[in-house]
């Protein structure tokens, strides 16, 4: 009986292989891609729930608001943009499903939130020839456009944020300082501290050491003491949300005069509300975007649109400063589409491959005052390596550094 079953299975397998051979390649190209005059579909792999919920909220709201406005004003060169956001909970299997769904809807580009997801979608983006963009996240290797042709960081990666912040501190305080780093244990945090170490070495400052906060740590008392014990002049940290608040609270208690700086996922109202305005006074952080509180042109445009259309301003704009990073992503998408239409003509068919070419032709783009100048090429997908530095004064963010770029990162692929 067993033999018969085996026979059945092998028969079926044979048939299956035969079927694939005949069925041919129906990967890619099946969905209606943004052909002439139709809406251009952009996928957003959202993460409003789970480990990076406030990133997901800020980015998701901003991208949707932005294209609602763009469409209401007649679209890009007359073409409307359809944003399709699918929630992934920051989990990989749902992200793979979401990507396939985007492909089916004919999406020509997908914006991804979270390093775990941008990593996971890199191979399928290449297989299906649909570019993914993930400004402000992702791993350093993806700057290399030849190794990862469909992955576009299009903004400062974690190590870049670190080197730029160190650069600003050295500019401010001189190179005779020691800088310590507190890393969040998951990869982005470690990559950040590696960047700090790199930059201190190449700028002639001293690296005081690294303290790591475990991803699942309930209590960071030991890490706070560790950070104080580094005896550094400045401490930079790459913690997020609850752990960032705890760390800042702890440092305020144990070393009130220590200057503390943050990576760009930790300059939010969460930290100010959680650790208290008094504690946060004088703390600083990096941001890849111009914060909404600076009222860049993009924010003005949104406010005008809301006023004209009589709709209420989105409260997330005020409540979650990561909305600014969302505007960064939205304006890069817009510019990508504009370049694509440049290539194929206003009624032409936009495909993933065209989008790739379009993104690679972005040159010196400033995203309505939201982004530092972005330039990408076939080889260099980094976009820029610059951040703004903000310091908290009187409970709100005050810009003290404009589009600062740090020294090159040692283990970054050479894309020059």
């Amino acid at each position, binding site marked *: 009986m*067993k033999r018969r079953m085996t026979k*059945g299975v092998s028969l079926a397998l044979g048939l299956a292989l035969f079927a*694939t051979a005949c069925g041919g390649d129906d*990967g890619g190209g099946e969905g209606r891609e943004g052909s002439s005059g139709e809406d251009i579909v952009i996928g957003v792999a959202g993460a409003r729930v789970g480990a990076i919920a406030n990133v997901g909220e800020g980015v998701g709201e901003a991208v949707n608001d932005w294209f609602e406005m763009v469409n209401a004003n007649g679209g890009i060169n007359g073409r409307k943009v359809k944003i399709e956001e699918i929630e992934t909970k920051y989990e990989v*299997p749902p992200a793979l499903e979401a990507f*396939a769904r985007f492909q089916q809807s004919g999406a020509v580009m997908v914006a991804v939130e979270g390093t775990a997801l941008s990593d996971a979608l890199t191979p399928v983006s290449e297989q299906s020839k649909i570019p993914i963009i993930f400004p402000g996240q992702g791993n350093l290797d993806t700057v290399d456009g030849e190794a990862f042709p469909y992955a576009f960081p299009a903004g400062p990666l974690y190590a870049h944020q670190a080197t730029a912040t160190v650069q600003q501190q050295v500019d401010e305080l001189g190179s005779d300082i020691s800088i310590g780093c507190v890393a969040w244990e998951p990869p982005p945090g470690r990559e950040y501290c590696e960047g700090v170490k790199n930059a201190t070495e190449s700028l002639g400052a001293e690296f005081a050491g690294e303290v790591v906060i475990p991803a699942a740590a309930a209590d960071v008392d030991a890490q706070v003491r560790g950070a104080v014990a580094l005896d550094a002049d400045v401490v930079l940290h790459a913690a997020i949300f609850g752990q960032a608040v705890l760390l800042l609270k702890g440092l305020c208690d144990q070393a009130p005069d220590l200057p503390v700086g943050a990576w760009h996922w930790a300059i939010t109202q969460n930290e100010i509300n959680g650790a208290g305005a008094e504690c946060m006074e004088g703390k600083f952080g990096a941001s890849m975007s111009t914060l909404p509180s600076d009222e860049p042109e993009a924010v003005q445009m949104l406010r005008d649109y809301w006023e004209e259309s009589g709709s209420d301003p989105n409260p997330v704009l005020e409540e979650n400063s990561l909305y600014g990073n969302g505007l960064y992503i939205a304006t890069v998408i817009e510019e990508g589409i504009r370049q694509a239409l440049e290539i194929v003509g206003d009624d032409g068919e936009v495909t993933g491959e065209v989008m790739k070419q379009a993104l690679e032709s972005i040159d010196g783009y400033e995203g309505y005052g939201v982004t530092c100048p972005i330039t990408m090429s076939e080889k260099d997908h980094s976009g820029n390596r610059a951040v703004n530095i903000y310091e908290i004064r009187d409970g709100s963010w005050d810009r003290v550094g404009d589009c600062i770029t740090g020294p090159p990162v040692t283990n970054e692929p050479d894309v020059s």
Partner: protein
Amino acid sequence: METGRFHEKYAEEIAVYGTPYRRIWILAVLAVTFVVVPLVASPYWLVVLTLVGIAAVGATGLNVLVGYAGQISLGHAAFAAVGAYTSGLLVSRADAPFWVAIPTAMVAAGVFSLIFGLASLRVKGLYLAIATLAAQYIVQWILSSWTWITGGFQGIVIFEPIQVGPLDTTTPTGKYLMVFIALALVVMFVENLMRSRSGRAMIAVRDQDIAAAGSAVSPLRYKLLAFFISSAIAGLSGVLYGYNAGLVSTEVFTLALSVQYLAMILVGGLGSIPGSLLGAAFITMLPIWLRDLLPAVGIELSASVEVHLLTMLFGVAILLFLVLEPRGLYGLFRNVKDYFRMWPFSY
């Protein structure tokens, strides 16, 4: 007039083709799976079915442990990670061919799990659940801090696509076939395992360990065996995951995944292979259905509310099945089938 199906001989109990129709059914399912679906399904549905298949492999593996041996594991995602990283590293660093790497990865996942099994299965009770919870956290920690294993902070291991004749895992069809071939092999293995002495020994230990020990069936040995097999299959699902996505990174194999595997077999049906498959399909596709169908009937929920609602529904579904139909979806299906088969004399 049929009033039910009764086994009169022991051979009937363990027959693969319990009824003459069963053989036709199996062939029909195989034909649909391997011929019809790859020909007619859209790439999107192939992707979804591939995810279902990967989940089904993991769930079938877990069902060997929970359904047949009566033990709980909260660490199957960790064992999947061990499998995925072992095969990925063997291929990318040692240039091993995939047909060497995959079995090695399964054995590695199984052997690794035995550390936790040995600690907890010697004690009566559900200590394995606690030990495997520890395994989940320990593996996640190893992946993110021992960069000399994973090769960098992101812990990224690239899976070179398998390209054998027409089977090419860079296409949705290729991925689908790879996963369902593996699933068919796993199902065949587990089905046969349960007809063997070992499988029946596991069930005996689950139901009455003292009696089993009295019949020269060592409870520890068979619990460990079930755990080993179950974890090795979990390792295979990790490997499949890697080939499907093209790479693995440290943040993939989380506790949430382990709990989802449990939900699948509970909803599908404990101790039944069709149950594992049904449960995997149900749990994987429920979010998609909710997302697509709720707006169609005029209910617009924000993305986050929808996700939280789903998390809650998982819990509610498990509880309802536990209380009302412990045999799960497959049990429901059987009830309905029996009702109609014996109609009009259903009881």
